[in-house]
């Protein structure tokens, strides 16, 4: 029982990271109508910005997180102005390919600036809290609490933003029908900027959390991209609320799968879920309503 609960904790931690990535992926898909393949590498970039703040400027990690995430937004906005915006009136597949290019540029830049080696935010071992349970014990590291708590706060803030603010409602409207949003008088370019801002902020925080959970390396985000896509697709891509459910499901499924299969096959679990969803419920399992 303790072992199961331990895996649930790991699953929730991974799920929090995936959720933060999947929300942004889903928002960009819903509003800009293309699959943003550079999303994982923006997660990496955010993680490395935080590394510089922690290791070189000696800022505490909790202060570094928002600063690094804001810096990542700036890079995304530059990529949007220089590349994506020019292609916005072309077909989605062209934007998709362009985003693969952006992904490669970001990954190479990270390797050039920070080097190809594995790095950590703080050296040494973090002692976990040990909670006795039945015949065993559950171990939770302080960083795990930050990751789960941080994701919970950000997701709640996103909910308030989407439901109650003028821009949040306009984002949902644009995701429903961009043409109607234009004739309604919504400034769609402004909504695009907000979409990048929010999506990339969450992605960068997710990347930093991934670095806190394990280590940093230049493909940390790229490797997360597959489960992040799986989470977004599971939740019905384009639906930020589905992305939350999808992220948690994939995170838990990956960790709990180690009860029955070799842990080295963990990544295959999200791949298998994604394939199954695409075959049987291509609109996502949480997309109950069709329009």
């Amino acid at each position: 029982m303790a072992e199961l609960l331990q895996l649930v904790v790991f699953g929730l931690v991974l799920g929090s990271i995936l959720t933060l990535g999947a929300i942004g992926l889903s928002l960009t898909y819903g509003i800009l109508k293309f699959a943003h393949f550079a999303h994982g590498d923006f997660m990496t970039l955010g993680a490395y910005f935080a590394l510089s703040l922690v290791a070189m400027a000696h800022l505490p990690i909790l202060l570094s997180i928002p600063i690094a995430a804001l810096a990542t937004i700036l890079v995304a906005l530059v990529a949007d102005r220089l590349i994506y915006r020019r292609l916005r009136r072309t077909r989605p597949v062209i934007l998709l390919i362009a985003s693969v290019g952006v992904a490669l540029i970001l990954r190479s830049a990270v390797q050039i600036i920070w080097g190809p080696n594995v790095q950590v935010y703080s050296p040494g071992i973090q002692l976990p809290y040990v909670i006795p349970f039945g015949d065993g014990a559950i171990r939770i590291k302080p960083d795990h609490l930050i990751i789960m708590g941080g994701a919970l706060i950000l997701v709640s803030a996103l909910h308030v933003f989407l439901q109650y603010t003028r821009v949040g409602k306009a984002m949902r409207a644009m995701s429903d029908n961009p043409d109607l949003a234009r004739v309604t008088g919504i400034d769609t370019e402004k909504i695009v900027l907000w979409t990048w801002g929010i999506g990339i902020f969450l992605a960068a925080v997710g990347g930093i959390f991934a670095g806190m959970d394990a280590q940093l390396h230049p493909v940390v985000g790229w490797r997360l991209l597959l489960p992040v896509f799986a989470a977004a697709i599971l939740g019905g891509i384009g639906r930020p609320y589905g992305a939350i459910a999808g992220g948690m499901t994939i995170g838990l499924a990956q960790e709990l799968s180690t009860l029955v299969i070799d842990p080295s096959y963990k990544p295959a679990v999200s791949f298998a879920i994604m394939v199954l969803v695409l075959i049987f419920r291509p609109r996502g399992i949480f997309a109950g309503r069709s329009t």
Partner: protein
Amino acid sequence: MTGGYGGVDILQGVDLVVEPGEIVVIIGPNGAGKSTAMKAIFGLVHLREGHVTFDGAEITNLQPNKIVERGVGFVPQSDNVFPSLTVAENLDMGAFTRRDDFEPARQKVYELFPILRERSRQLAGQLSGGQRQMVAMGRALMLEPKLLLLDEPTAGLAPAVIDDMFASIREVNRELGVSILMVEQNAKQALRMAHRGYVLAAGRNRYDDTGENLLANREVAEMFLGG
């Protein structure tokens, strides 16, 4: 107006005028350029030649969000509500460009369509066709436009609902003082309530006259009103 999509001129010199306070109806066979003319006024179709002026100012080929700000509302024919937003949120979106208090505008929309007040918290995607059309028109009225462009407002509605829709359009025109330019398939019914009408064919003006005269015109009746 002359222009169209991708180098093909669907509109070949169409000329339309709406005076303040008027209801003007555009009729004509399929492919005559009725909807295209409407979209061209609203900046959704590029005009190669010609001008669109509104309230004395040139608005030719402006972005739709700029045209909305000047007081022109547009209700597209289909997909004209945000299905995953509530009725109230759909109306909020209509007022997106407004920075002032738009609550009075919302109350006017609810007075015009009382059912929308009852359904205000329901998702627009769950409404019937007629109610969706009310949401779409309500959304456009949130900016208190001077001119409302309606693209086939009764398309796909049941006959009883069509009568209600025409009654609402008349009320918008009379009570709220909004000029109306609409494309309509139910040509006879539309011409009966219109001050003036245009018959378009093959991208050009064919006839223009008062609604009454067009209804009485034998050629128009034979060719465009189904005898």
